[in-house]
């Protein structure tokens, strides 16, 4: 699906509201009441001077956020059109980007080693940058008659999803939920039938925190037969909603009015519900930049076992924008850089949090992204 430069009235209103409120102004003439002093929260982008078309695509997890960013960005930069195609998913996005069809790729995982090598033919010796611009959490959603508040330890989650626990009144679940009456309903686990970055994150979480229970290798395809496998996050959400005794995992931004379980932090007694701050805190605590040998690259590795504070949500989900350090066409490079800078600004992050249910990336990482972007030519 192509997202065209159609400034929906509602989104425009929101952008204006954002611009008018705390967030200071955008540089140049945004057509709104400019306060002449740009703050650190907003990037200095000369919107008026920009024109052209950015073509991108990839991850469907960040598609809603991309839509919000594009609407907000093009509302100010009237001469710019941005197309983000989510139909190909992360894998297809990276493939198309490597083939030179996209200016940047949206991807739930950073480039793999062989892709880094391939990217040098496209981007020159400077290579490509993985920039973590989208943060969300994987929610464990369930539908169980009579139970509206559920705590799950990482061990219990691993046992449920590896089909070792099959009924809701299992002692392991009861132990996590003292005082709650659990029915004997059989558990139906709902997973993704299509390959997904959400699955990668969730299986990574399981294998890192409970390696003795969850013995399957992490990956983008659900490894265990016997669950109810559904297409897309919406398929999982709908099926969990329609069933009784169902439990599944999905991007938190997509779960709608379903109840998400409180997930145990570390090995302690704290159970935490998803919150934007929780995800941001988890990012700060667990994400470390991987040295890929590319200057400025910000590919992250999440150490789920490092999330131990009660103010952090234990299963964060990061998605990247991937772009070249050197563009074949310099003007195109400037344009793409402007958009990514906007996305990785405080304002951009607030837009995705408000419109797409995402969590804001912590400020120090945004600063690092800004530094890395200076390498882009």
């Amino acid at each position, binding site marked *: 699906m192509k997202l065209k430069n159609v400034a929906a009235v509602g989104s425009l209103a929101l952008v204006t509201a954002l611009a008018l409120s705390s967030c200071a102004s955008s540089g140049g003439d945004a057509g709104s009441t400019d306060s002449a002093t740009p703050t650190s929260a907003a990037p200095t982008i000369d919107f008026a001077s920009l024109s052209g078309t950015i073509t991108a695509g990839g991850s469907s997890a960040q598609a809603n956020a991309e839509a919000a960013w594009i609407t907000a960005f093009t509302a100010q930069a009237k001469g710019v059109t941005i197309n983000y195609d989510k139909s190909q998913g992360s894998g*297809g996005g990276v493939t198309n980007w490597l083939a030179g069809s996209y200016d940047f790729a949206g991807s739930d995982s950073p480039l793999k080693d062989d892709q880094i090598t391939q990217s040098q033919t496209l981007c020159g010796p400077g290579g490509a940058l993985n920039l973590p611009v989208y943060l969300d959490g994987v929610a464990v959603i369930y539908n169980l008659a009579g139970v509206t508040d559920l705590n799950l330890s990482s061990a219990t989650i691993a046992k449920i999803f590896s089909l070792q626990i099959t009924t809701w009144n299992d002692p392991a679940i009861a132990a996590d939920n003292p005082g709650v009456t659990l029915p004997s309903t059989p558990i139906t686990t709902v997973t993704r039938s299509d390959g997904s970055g959400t699955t990668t994150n969730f299986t990574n979480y399981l294998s890192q925190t409970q390696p003795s229970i969850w013995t399957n290798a992490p*990956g983008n395809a659900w490894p265990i037969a016997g669950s109810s496998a559904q297409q897309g996050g919406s*398929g999982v959400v709908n099926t969990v909603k329609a069933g009784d*005794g169902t439990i599944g995992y999905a991007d938190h931004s997509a779960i709608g009015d379903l109840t998400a379980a409180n997930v145990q932090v570390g090995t302690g007694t704290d159970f935490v519900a998803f919150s934007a701050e929780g995800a941001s805190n988890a990012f700060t605590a667990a994400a470390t930049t991987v040295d890929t040998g590319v200057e400025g690259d910000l590919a992250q590795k999440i150490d789920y076992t490092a999330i131990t504070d009660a103010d952090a949500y234990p299963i964060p989900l990061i998605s990247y924008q991937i772009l070249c350090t050197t563009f074949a066409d310099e003007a195109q490079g400037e344009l793409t850089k402007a958009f990514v800078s906007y996305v990785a600004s405080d304002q951009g992050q607030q837009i995705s949090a408000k419109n797409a249910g995402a969590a804001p990336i912590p400020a120090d990482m945004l600063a690092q992204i800004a530094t890395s972007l200076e390498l882009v030519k």
Partner: protein
Amino acid sequence: MSKPGPSSPQQRAPKGMRAKARPADRIFLGLSTGSAASIMVILAGVALFLIIQAVPAIMADWQNNPELNEGPTSGYANFWTYVGPLIFGTLFASAIALIIGAPIAIGIALFISHYAPRRLAGILGYLVDLLAAVPSIVFGLWGIIVIRPFLLPLSDWLNTYLGWIPFFGGTVSTTGSTILAGAVVLAVMILPIITSISREIFLQTPRLHEEAALALGATKWEMIKMAVFPYGRSGVISATLLGLGRALGETMAIALIISPAILVSVRMLTEGENSQTIAANIALNFPIATTLQREALIGTGLLLFVISLAVNMLARIIAGRAGKSALKKRKKMLAQLPPSDPSTVLAVDDVLAGRATAAQATTGAAAAIDGDETETSKEEREGNDA
């Protein structure tokens, strides 16, 4: 095309009768020849694309290749152990759909052609054609929201009382994402193609044959058994196989409804033992696949292409065989009859024509029927209309 005339080449054609170059004829001949050739080129191009793309994955060492050992393709000894269960799932889901859908489709066709009052028949025919225009994603959503919960009580019942039959065994699904639900939706999707072709065939039943049966005191159903079915049999088989062809390639509805697993299982009511189909597997995994995984998926697509081709050829052979077996019979009969009885030959041609008409209605020029039969079949049709 035309035979050389009796005159020798030196002789000029008389004035006013000389062959003229007619540009419009030539242009149209060129255009239609070009169109005909392009279909060959397209088909060959698709086949070539599939083969070239698939070869690396088919030849790859699946056990040790790191790229194939992660994500959707991990855990298979080679390409064939990966694609085998998918082929089974594809055929299995389509077979169930056919078993459910074909009798209903033929029943609808019969109702429209022989039972319904004219006005109702018109409306029904229109509705069936409309069904063909519904996009498969809509069928998929309908399957998720309506058919899945709708089939749950039936699934429970089948599992409880007929669970000893392998098809209905296993742990019954609680969400309804079963291969049965998928097949029911598939059955609805193949209804229009089978119905509309069968209806056309049934409507072409010569009135003479129908009246012959009725005049003998046949009830409507007996008339249909005596006159309509024998006439339309090969056409209905072809229609059914075309429906099968559609079912084999159906993607979105299956991908949305069924909770798949890559394994060989005949169980129809379970959550985790539904054999995945090729088309749905490609749709679900293509977006996330790496280069070599994509090639593996294209390889499965190649096999689907081959299976579909085989089914279509089978449809044509069955439709054509009616014509061929009639040809054999004609030779046999002619051998038995005195050669001085010209009316016999004509009569035999009538029979052949009757069958050829049915075959042609579905497979058109592709049916293996030689030229003179095609001509007599036209005569026969005109005769029937008169």
